[in-house]
């Protein structure tokens, strides 16, 4: 036994040593192969390669393509390029950056913000590239530097294309902005295998369409074979393969409608998304406040960035897709539709609304003290009865509500072609289970269902989701993915690629139920909470006001707007579609801390619809609807 084991061991050891020898042989063979290759390159082909290295005065210089244009639906230019001279420094060739900059400042105007921006670029940009210290030089400055070029090494004047957004802040959250290619961008491009095509490209989309359509807009980099002198400077161009410009994007957006909508907000914060129900094409996309994307074009200077980034109004925040708000009473038409579809209510059934709903020992109050009296489904929407929907939610139960609302896209990304979309929250027992850790928090309480019915509670959706749900309802259940780009045009071939309407799903709905809800929403604008905002309209629109609580209130506390500071005031919402018979537009408006929906959001919707349907511009800045209450918009939002 023992002997056999030993023998076995010895033979295994011998086998191992044999394999070590074999490995050694492989190593030597591989190194021999390398040596042969080195001899081939360095001895036999040496003359040829030496000649090539000499000639390697021929440098392959990338030629950056010009970035595609962005146009609105009528061909109005929203983003374009222009040529300007920049003064650039190659940090790798400069020994003392500060001294060089100080010296340059004797010839051109270099402000503190230019220096700050240069330092920031130096930190975040890939190395070995040239960096602008001054952009948009005047002709005189170009001449001055050119005359004194010999004083400097590692300094050059270059002609570069700059991005320009002629409309400034308008549609800034749709367009987004571009910025320098950072080290992180560079690494991502390498992973995508796109790094070669970006040699020579300095700017890349950072937000909005500029980011989400970066690939389309960029184009294909060309290259020049340039003869260079011993110092690496170009002498003459030997051959050139032209770059191919990026594709132009045409949007579904109408920039004039966009401007009307943005102006209607004034200084207020909020968002508006208007969609063409039959295609999902976005007609207007507002997030207020916006910012001037031109600030970012040649690298934003730190002080402007500070201002944008630290503003309490969060101008860089794209509220239309990244902001989530409780829908308030704009949720009611969908609740009504659910009630009809699930057979929980008929148009004829009525309830008596005493102004509150009692569940267990809790009393859920209606926003109208004393209630609306006898309320049927039609009146529940037109007058926005809370009590009706407290009862309805209780009768339906959370699972039925969540199941129905999910089909309208609530609590799911719309899939719009912009980055940074939030999911929102469609409350359900499953959601709560996943959201919370402790068992007592995970449980769904029946009492929590009640306020879900009026769009409060855990409900939280983006304005884009609300607009998409409104469009789906207006379109009789056919839901389209919203998109801002209508078609992509190749600048070279003229070939056009349409962005085809993409049907997300067809929500199965009985036509008479949809008709009923639409009729009730039309009633809102004629005899309901939206009547004042839509008084004298020359078209029939459907709508629903909403008011979303920012602060939770105690059960019997009365909400008094005047006592609450501005930031704690309710959000004002309105959803609308028009014309009622064949809807061409569906929209959702949120005015942050705007108070009642009828007061702040509905007039904005009116302004937008007036312009869209009639081409009518608002005469003067619309005054907010006076505080005096009329019977028709009794304080139910």
């Amino acid at each position: 036994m023992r002997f056999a084991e030993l023998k076995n061991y010895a033979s295994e050891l011998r086998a191992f040593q044999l394999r070590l020898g074999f490995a050694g042989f492989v190593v030597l063979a591989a190194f021999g192969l390398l040596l042969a290759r080195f001899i081939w390159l360095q001895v036999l082909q040496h003359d040829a390669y030496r000649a090539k290295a000499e000639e390697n005065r021929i440098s392959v210089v990338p030629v950056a393509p010009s970035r595609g244009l962005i146009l609105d639906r009528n061909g109005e230019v929203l983003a374009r390029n222009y040529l300007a001279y920049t003064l650039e420094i190659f940090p790798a060739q400069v020994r003392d950056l500060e001294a060089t900059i100080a010296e340059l400042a004797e010839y051109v105007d270099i402000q503190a913000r230019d220096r700050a921006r240069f330092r920031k670029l130096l930190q975040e940009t890939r190395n070995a590239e040239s960096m602008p210290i001054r952009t948009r030089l005047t002709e005189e400055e170009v001449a001055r530097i050119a005359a004194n070029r010999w004083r400097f090494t590692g300094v050059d004047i270059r002609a570069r294309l700059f991005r320009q957004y002629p409309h400034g802040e308008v549609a800034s959250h749709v367009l987004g902005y571009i910025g320098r290619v950072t080290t992180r961008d560079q690494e991502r491009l390498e992973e995508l295998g796109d790094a070669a095509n970006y040699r020579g490209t300095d700017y890349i989309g950072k937000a909005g369409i500029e980011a989400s359509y970066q690939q389309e807009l960029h184009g294909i980099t060309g290259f020049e074979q340039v003869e260079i002198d011993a110092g690496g400077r170009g002498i003459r161009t030997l051959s050139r393969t032209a770059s191919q410009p990026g594709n132009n994007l045409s949007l579904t957006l109408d920039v004039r409608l966009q401007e009307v909508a943005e102006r209607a907000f004034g200084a207020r914060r909020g968002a508006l998304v208007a969609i063409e129900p039959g295609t999902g094409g976005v007609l207007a996309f507002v997030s207020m406040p916006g910012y001037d994307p031109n600030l970012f074009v040649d690298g934003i200077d730190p002080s402007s960035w500070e201002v944008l980034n630290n503003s309490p109004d969060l101008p860089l925040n794209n509220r239309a897709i990244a902001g989530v708000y409780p829908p308030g009473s704009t949720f009611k038409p969908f609740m009504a539709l659910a009630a009809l579809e699930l057979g929980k209510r008929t148009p004829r059934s009525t309830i008596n609304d005493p102004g509150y709903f009692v569940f267990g020992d809790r009393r859920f109050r209606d926003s109208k003290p004393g209630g609306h009296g006898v309320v049927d489904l039609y009146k529940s929407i037109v007058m926005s009865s809370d009590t009706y929907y407290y009862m309805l939610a209780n009768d339906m139960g959370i699972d039925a509500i969540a199941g129905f609302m999910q089909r309208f896209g609530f609590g799911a990304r719309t899939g719009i072609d912009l980055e940074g979309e939030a999911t929102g929250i469609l409350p359900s027992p499953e959601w709560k289970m996943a959201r919370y850790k402790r068992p007592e928090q995970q449980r769904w309480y029946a009492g929590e269902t009640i306020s879900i019915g009026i769009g409060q509670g855990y409900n939280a959706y983006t304005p884009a989701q609300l607009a998409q749900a409104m469009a789906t309802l207006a379109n009789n259940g056919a839901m389209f993915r919203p998109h801002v780009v209508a078609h992509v045009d190749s600048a070279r071939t003229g070939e056009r690629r349409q962005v085809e309407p993409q049907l997300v799903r067809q929500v199965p709905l009985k036509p008479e139920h949809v008709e009923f809800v639409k009729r009730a929403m039309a009633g809102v604008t004629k005899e309901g909470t939206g009547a004042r905002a839509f008084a004298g309209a020359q078209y029939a629109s459907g709508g629903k006001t909403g008011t979303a609580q920012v602060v939770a209130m105690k059960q019997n506390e009365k909400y008094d707007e005047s006592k609450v500071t501005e930031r704690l005031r309710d959000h004002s919402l309105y959803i609308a579609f028009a014309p009622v018979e064949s809807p061409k537009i569906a929209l959702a408006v949120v005015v942050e801390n705007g108070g009642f929906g009828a007061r702040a959001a509905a007039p904005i919707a009116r302004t937008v619809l007036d312009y869209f349907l009639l081409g009518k511009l608002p005469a003067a800045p619309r005054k907010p609807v006076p505080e005096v209450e009329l019977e028709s918009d009794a304080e139910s939002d």
Partner: protein
Amino acid sequence: MEIAGHSLHRLRERLVEGIDGPLFALALALTAIGLAALYSASYENAARVAAQLGNVAAALAAMWLVAQIPPQTLLRLALPAYVVALALLVGVSLFGEVVNGARRWLNLGVGRFQPSEMMKIAMPLMLAWYFHRREGSIRLRDFALATLLLVVPVLLVARQPDLGTALLIAAAGFTVIFFAGLSWKVLVGLGLLALAALPPLWGVLHDYQRRRILTLLDPSTDPLGSGYHIIQSTIAVGSGGVTGKGWLNGSQTHLEFIPERATDFIFAVYSEEFGLIGNVVLLALYALLVGRGLSIAAQAPTQFTRLLAGAVTLIFFTYAFVNMGMVAGILPVVGVPLPFISYGGTALATLYVGIGILMSIYRHRTLVQT
């Protein structure tokens, strides 16, 4: 005075204890060459060299520490190290931070961490441990299981995607299996099978990976991308000639024709400036390092230490061969650094840990009995 001198002597003893002279000298010589090449590649940027010196100091400390760990402890650490590395890799593929399109990083709160680096050492440790346990009764079944232990992490890393690291881990694991005595018949069979598997494998590759292989065959198809790397690095090597252009005098390097010249393509800089003579010196240093490692493996007392020493030694070879082959234009461009020479702290630390393992095995060659 006497006492102080004595304790100083003791300290020196303690420091050099377990340090293998030849291995240490070879690694240091390579590292010194690396610093010289880096100085040239970074356009005489002393700060860059100083940063690398810091990396060297950290790597040397790691080597010293590992050299103090007896092989039995390494044996005990093998399974946990593998399990942890594998769990982290799975963690990466599930919750890893996507940095620039690749899911390689795990955020541990204190900082980001790349578990695939850990796997480079954990893999040979694990397989050596496994064959050590099965010593004397290794059957084909064991090889199958070892292959599974190898393939799972390799696939996880390849999917990140990080083909270079996946290849290195696969090579490290394969050498253990080879040294453990997988029969030649099976090896040849597997080789044939691998050849047959090439076409379907092609379909799995990412676009940019395919492009790299295609540009190897014809670099001129991609003059701005990886073809450019190959064209320019072969010109650098070829124009160096027998004696080279002299330190800091490489025109390819200094006219910015060599991309990634401090990291993956540093060999082009070296080769241009030091020529064929320099290359032969470098090959000789690597060959001596590998030879020393294989001799340590031959003298190693246990199955575990034998396999581990063999595999770790061949890691150095794989790195060096793949990198130089890439720069000389006979292998596709994959992100593999030149051992001890390329700029970068993580790879250097991994390599010196490998040296430390070899030192520990050599030091305990007669102390431990099976």
